[in-house]
């Protein structure tokens, strides 16, 4: 096993934040991480969602949003920081993007590229797959 391949299919803020937290620390600790955002997992990354703060959240997510940004960086800020330190790549699912009629310009600037299922499986071959 040489790292984690995380499938992010949830739009729930707490899940997305948990993924960014764990993935960021792993990558910064020299454990390679690849994240495949698919289905509803793409939605929190939409620029209009980030700018409006209109996330799908429960009580813990609500507390995150109440916290000052400098004290509690949200998932996209954590990913951006991790990319500057470690080996972490994020891919947006092509199929889900097609269904949503969006392209990468509609999302915050954390994705390395778009990817299909075969591309993800090729990259996940030597990694432990985690489904969120």
């Amino acid at each position, binding site marked *: 096993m040489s790292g984690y391949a995380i499938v992010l299919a949830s739009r729930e803020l707490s899940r997305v934040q948990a993924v960014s937290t764990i993935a960021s*620390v792993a990558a910064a*600790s020299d454990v390679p991480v690849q994240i495949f955002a698919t289905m509803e997992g793409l939605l929190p990354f939409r620029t209009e969602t980030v700018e409006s703060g209109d996330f799908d959240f429960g009580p813990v997510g609500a507390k995150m949003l109440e916290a000052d940004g*400098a*004290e*509690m960086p949200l998932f996209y800020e954590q990913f951006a920081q991790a990319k500057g330190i470690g080996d972490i790549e994020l891919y947006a699912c092509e199929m889900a993007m097609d269904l949503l009629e969006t392209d990468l310009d509609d999302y915050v600037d954390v994705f390395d590229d778009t990817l299909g299922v075969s591309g993800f499986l090729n990259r996940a071959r030597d990694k432990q797959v985690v489904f969120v």
Partner: protein
Amino acid sequence: MNDSDYDPDVTIDSRDATCPGPLMDLIGKVKEAEPGTVIELRTSDSGSKSDVPEWLDEAGHDLLDTVDNGDYWSLFVRTN
């Protein structure tokens, strides 16, 4: 001032930052530090106080001391 025997080469002030902020700040400094560098990490996050030593143990660096300053902790780390 800290009640510690260690005089840090680098001080990281991560007070008020939540998990994993203090750890990420520390990792960034550790990666660019020479072996033998003493780093003081200041954190007010109790989770980070517990979690940082776990990371140090796995990464092979030394936790020299943890000082309770009342409203924050100072973790003294030596890089290897």
